[in-house]
């Protein structure tokens, strides 16, 4: 029996004894115990979500916001306009979905080896380890808008450091565009990788510190090489934590609004017109709140994918 299963059974048994009421189902007791969390969650998460879904079915805009409860009901119009490939908003909608998926997946793929590598390095005995551990967190501590401004300066055409370095190393011309056109996606990925790799580093470091030293000692006595130790011991033991890190990281990158907004403004190139930015522009610049809400619902559905994949993967090996 797993610990989780045992816990539930103890709770059920406790409920039966404590209640002593033949009319009350013992199975309800754990749910009552959950209510302190469920009630606030309902108020701050589920009700606004339901409300956002309702707004997505209305034509809420500048003309109706003053009396928003009477905004006209338009049914699934916004979804059809955006998701039907022949719909007028389909190119922008799909372009945003693609930009968000590519951006979040690519960033996560880049930060994974960087974060794990840094964690492995700083988990060993290293001179100045405490200082270096603190330094590693700096990019993560810098506010996102500051990070966005810094990277905008780095990628300025002609005058930015990126173009200067590129020209000095004869890798490309000094007037390469990074903030417009196809390269803008790379500029955004680089900026976000720099800012977010410490997240994976922290997760990996925390997982590494839970691995008992005697496991490594045993491996060493058995003559395992460093690579084999990593592959057979370290990686399997940190994988559950890394799985969570990857899921959370993908969701965080997908929802990143501040960085693309600061770097590219409200009319970004198609390549970086990620969903949060598109939703923001539709909702708060052009006042098309119904459409913005519909896009938010679609984004939520897309974001369920990494969460579901992680939850399913986490169940692997659960004997109960």
């Amino acid at each position, binding site marked *: 029996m797993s610990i989780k299963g045992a816990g539930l059974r103890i709770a059920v048994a406790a409920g039966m004894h404590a209640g002593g009421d033949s009319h009350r189902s013992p199975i309800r007791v754990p749910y009552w115990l959950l209510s302190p969390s469920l009630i606030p969650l309902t108020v701050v998460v589920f009700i606004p979500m339901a409300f956002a879904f309702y707004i997505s079915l209305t034509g809420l805009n500048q003309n109706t916001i003053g009396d928003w409860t009477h905004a006209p009901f338009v049914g699934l119009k916004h979804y059809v306009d955006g998701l039907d490939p022949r719909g007028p*908003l389909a190119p922008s909608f799909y372009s945003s979905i693609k930009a968000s998926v590519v951006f979040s997946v690519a960033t996560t793929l880049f930060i994974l080896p960087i974060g794990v590598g840094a964690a492995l390095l700083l988990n060993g005995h290293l001179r100045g380890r405490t200082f270096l551990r603190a330094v590693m967190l700096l990019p993560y501590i810098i506010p996102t808008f500051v990070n966005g401004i810094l990277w905008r300066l780095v990628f300025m055409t002609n005058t930015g450091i990126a173009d200067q370095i590129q020209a000095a190393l004869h890798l490309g011309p000094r007037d390469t565009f990074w903030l417009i056109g196809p390269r803008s996606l790379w500029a955004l990925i680089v900026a976000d990788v720099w800012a977010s790799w410490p997240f994976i580093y922290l997760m990996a470091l925390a997982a590494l510190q839970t691995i008992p030293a005697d496991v490594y000692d045993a491996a060493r006595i058995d003559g395992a090489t460093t690579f084999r130790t990593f592959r057979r011991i370290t990686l399997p033991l940190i994988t559950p934590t890394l799985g969570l890190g990857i899921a959370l990281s993908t969701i965080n990158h997908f929802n990143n609004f501040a960085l693309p907004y600061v770097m590219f403004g409200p009319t970004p190139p198609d390549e970086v017109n990620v969903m949060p930015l598109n939703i923001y522009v539709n909702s708060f610049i052009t006042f098309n709140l119904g459409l913005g809400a519909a896009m938010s619902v679609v984004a939520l559905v897309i974001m369920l994918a990494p969460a579901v994949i992680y939850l399913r993967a986490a169940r692997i090996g659960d004997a109960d």
Partner: protein
Amino acid sequence: MARLLETGVTRRRFLQVAGMGTAASVAVPGFLEACAQSASAPSTGSPKPATLSLYIAKDTARPQAQAQLMNMIKSKFEEENPGSSFTYDTYASAGEETTKLETSSAAQEGPDIFEFGSTLVPTAYATGSFEILTSDMWNHIGGKGIFFPPQLTMSGPSPDKLIAVPVSGNPWAMVHNKAMLQAAGISKVPTTWNDFIDAAKAMTNGTDQWGTAMAPADGFDPWHKIWLFVTQMGGQLMDSTGKKGLLDSNESVEACAFWLDWMAKYKIAARQDAAFKGADEVKAFATGKIAFSVMAGPGGMGTWDSSPVAGQYEYTLGPTVPYGMSSLPSGGKPAQGFVSGQYYTLFKYSKNQELALNLLKVVVSPEIQYQYFQLRKQQPVVLGTFNKYPELKQGNWAALYDAALKAYPTPFFSAWGPLEVELGKAINKMASQVGISGSYTMSDLKSALTQVNQELQATLG
């Protein structure tokens, strides 16, 4: 009733529930009505002392001057209204401005006074959250007649439905570097776009000196320029009902092509400009890199007066005859800028509207209006100020005064915001193409404009 009792509902319980329901049905509408009436309409009596709240645009170029001006306004207001005062919050971007407008409109709760830029006034009007100013209200602050007449064209959809009081102007004119024109032997500032292109070519060396600059990556510059060219050609960006986008009309395509050709065909602007925002163009002029800046407001003067071009630049009216023509076409307007500036509006649900009017009276007084010029380098909007302070019509401010008088209003459509964004998307995309490859095709341009017009149409319903 018998059925209810059968289902286990007691008479006592039924009466409890029914009684609560009846009480609620009587009390709730009464409560809501009371709430609706709590926003007091202005009366003729002396207003109750209170502290007003303002939500105003941040002067990012001169934050200290803005704070100084607000302190002056506050002192005068407190002196004239003992026991009353005001506090203010600022917004630094259009996004903050519209977000506050949305949340306040939806909640029917917010600051007593909102400041809006001219092109957002139609959107604010559409929300129905701002007081339509009556004749008595206008008279309270000095009457409509005290204002620069063009500014009132953006105060509301018609003279009897004005919601916004002008507080400062932002006229558009063309600015040029006198030394660069002189060096190129150009003695007359161009008045047609043909002459403009010729003059700009003469001052371009293709490396560090250019005839002009563009800011296609800016949130506003694309629609400013395209509106200008389309208006001069006799076209419109949206039809007269405000329900149909015309971003893919022949005039719009021609206007966009002409602007993109500054980089692609005439090569009077650098390809690097494809990533420029408005501030980049101001900087390029300050460093003496460009000769002309088209549709420049007075805001750039702060930068230019402390740069190598200090004393070397001059504002004039910009060209008004479309490229390839010797005179305006039929229906074309000699526009060289649109009515632009900042406006104060009274929030409909404010409980202090009469006091807010007293504050507006202070803000539009000639003395305070002069401080808008003196401290913030903004153009006053009250005629009396120009009579009292002659420097407002001297030097570069003479051309800006002329520009303000000749400005054309943009259509008073609540969907102007979406139009700005959609047009910006198409221009941004095409300018990127020009910046990267040096050219664009007309079919790509038409396709981009058709696409954004479809998107605009979908949002218009």
